[in-house]
């Protein structure tokens, strides 16, 4: 069935609520209102307020109480209204959820999923578009997943909910409704920690995720003379290092595209991975096409900030120069 990402996520949640009595869904405005992006539409009606409920305006409260629920034995799927507000729950997410197993030497675990929308190009007010995945890459014990299509979103969310450890599931707002894709209606999972080659090529490896996958593909289309390989990372932490290495060993050129700021981001980590494992395959320096090291700008400025196909095209061309 043709689905938008919203519909795919909604279905994934409904299927999980149905097949696993331990799953509960909570957050601000997710009940009657169905979530500000309607991802949890109708779920409270179907499954009741006991399992799908609204919380006070309290990010730390949402995550902290979810930690308790997860330790008890439930499988909470908590929504933070926008990823930028995760900062308010940093302590509970980083020092508590991600460390419960560690602190208790494995006695207690925290199978929690935190969902949050993020991403630019949609004219949001401050902090609503911020990309935080770089920050959470340095949170051992926490996985970070960013789907780029409805099909992937559904399967990855199912895997995230099934994972015995906490997962931060970030959803790019621009992708929520931008296109429909054929998606099975039944339950299926896609593996975490595994990237996907969405376009095969031999000259240059372009690594992207979220909305940037489309940007990378658009750039590739503008370069018919160059054999561009595009890899959708899908899971940001842990990165699929084997896929990255295999691709760069094949092509000798790498371009990484992400909206998030440049410093210490996914691009920096991938560059380091390439350095560690396949430096001698490189023909040119690794290119990173990223947001600038400024706060995410206001709506009128964001088009200049977010990586565009033109910037990616130029980066690819630079790697192709002798």
């Amino acid at each position: 069935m043709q689905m938008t990402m919203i519909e795919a996520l909604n279905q994934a949640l409904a299927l999980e609520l149905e097949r696993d009595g331990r799953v509960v869904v909570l957050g601000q405005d997710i009940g009657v209102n169905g979530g500000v992006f309607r991802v949890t539409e109708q779920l409270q009606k179907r499954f009741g307020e006991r399992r799908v409920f609204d919380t006070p305006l309290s990010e730390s409260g949402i995550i902290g109480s979810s930690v308790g629920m997860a330790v008890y034995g439930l499988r909470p799927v908590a929504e933070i209204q926008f990823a930028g507000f995760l900062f308010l729950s940093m302590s509970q997410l980083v020092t508590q959820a991600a460390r419960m197993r560690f602190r208790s030497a494995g006695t207690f675990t925290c199978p929690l999923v935190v969902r949050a929308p993020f991403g630019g190009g949609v004219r949001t007010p401050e902090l609503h578009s911020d990309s935080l995945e770089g920050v959470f890459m340095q949170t051992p014990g926490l996985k970070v997943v960013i789907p780029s299509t409805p099909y992937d979103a559904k399967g990855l969310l199912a895997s995230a909910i099934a994972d015995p450890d906490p997962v931060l599931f970030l959803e790019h707002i621009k992708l929520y409704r931008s296109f429909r894709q054929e998606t099975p209606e039944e339950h299926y999972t896609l593996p975490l920690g595994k990237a996907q080659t969405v376009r095969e090529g031999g000259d240059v490896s372009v690594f992207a995720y979220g909305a940037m996958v489309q940007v990378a593909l658009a750039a590739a289309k503008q370069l018919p003379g160059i054999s561009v390989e595009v890899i959708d990372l899908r899971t940001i932490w842990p990165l699929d290092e084997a896929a990255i290495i295999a691709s760069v060993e094949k092509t000798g050129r790498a371009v990484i595209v992400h909206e998030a700021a440049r410093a210490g981001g996914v691009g920096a980590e991938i560059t380091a991975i390439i350095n560690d494992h396949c430096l001698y395959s490189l023909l040119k320096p690794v290119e990173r096409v990223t947001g600038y090291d400024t706060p995410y700008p206001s709506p009128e400025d964001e088009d200049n900030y977010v990586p565009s196909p033109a910037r990616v095209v130029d980066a690819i061309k630079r790697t192709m120069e002798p």
Partner: protein
Amino acid sequence: MKEFKLPDLGEGMQEAEIRHWLIKPGDTLRLDQPMVEVETDKAVVEIPSPIAGRVSAIRVQEGTVAKLGEVLVIFDAPGETSTPARPAASTPSANTTAVPVSQASVQTTTHDIATRQRVLAAPAVRKRAFELSIELANVQSSHPTGRVTMDDLQRYVEHAQQKPAVSPSTPAPTELSSESANGARRAAPVASGKQGEEAEERQPLTGLRRRIAERMERSWRTIPHATAFDEIDGTALAALRQTLKSLAEQRGIRLTYMPLLVKLLLPALKEFPIFNASLDEERREIIYKRVYHIGIATDSPEGLLVPVLRNADQLTVTQIAEQLEHLIAGAQKRSLALSEVSGSTFTLNNVGSFGGSSGTPIINYPETAILAVGRLQEKAIVQDGKIVARTMLPLALSFDHRVIDGALAGRFLARFRALVEQPQQLLLDMI
């Protein structure tokens, strides 16, 4: 004006080959700034600048051999200025991303770091050049920054193949093969040298190869070699190693035969000190060494190297195993220090690792003996009139016949044999 001469880098070296200048005339150096790479007999050594000052002229070019005490480089005295030709400063590469530090900005920092005289090339290009034994400095660059590209390397190879024509029997620099890493899905160049024009090709001995040749010459010329061959029963040794191997693995250590052989060798060396000695030809004196530094002959991409296990008699088997790993890996990467490849008092050569059984080993001058061990192999031997299968270890002991007689060599081997055939006797002397 101040001259800097090639210093004594140790181990009695008399000369060194200039491998690579890291600075150029006109540069102003800091005290101790890395200045030049030279290669001695054993190792590649980096010489730091002896003063802070401006380089006036370089006297010995790369690839040339300088003698001990020869002037290598001249500095201006403070106050003097010379006007050396300054090559154009290299422009930053065409990489115009927002990456902070370009080459140009490095040059202008207050740290005053002089531009390195290093050839620019991407990692993939360097690797390929290394595999083909091509000096990047010799490759003509087509790029405005002087960077050597894969295409440049390709052209160099093709050109080299066309020059003295290739006769089928002489190995030529191989073409850039279809190996992955370099976008070489594009057609690999075809090696089509002009054939039949000349019957030979000349290749100068350089670097390590040159060193090895010189040392082999000296050893063979000076020392009257005699070799005693033997085959000893290594069944107990093989069994012991098998037992110890899994224990060592639990500690993350890979245990080969070599550490055990070293350990078993030491009692023999202690009982027959002439094998751990050296003949001073000038003074006609035998120098008996009181330390036991065992050289382990090792193959490296550039040729034979002999890293040294220092004070092997004070190391445990596991310590020897760990050190060997380090030394062998270092030999592969040519990253060993001078002290790690010199000073051996006896050398052990494992020819078994490349499938050989025995041969005439050449003594590692100026030692008095060398022991080659071959591959452990099950053989049919006769014991008490019956044919039995035993794991046999072939040996070849070359010795300096000026100071060691055949009978003594025989007794040494017999002692070694006794140790190897009953290795557990080491426990009797263990502290």
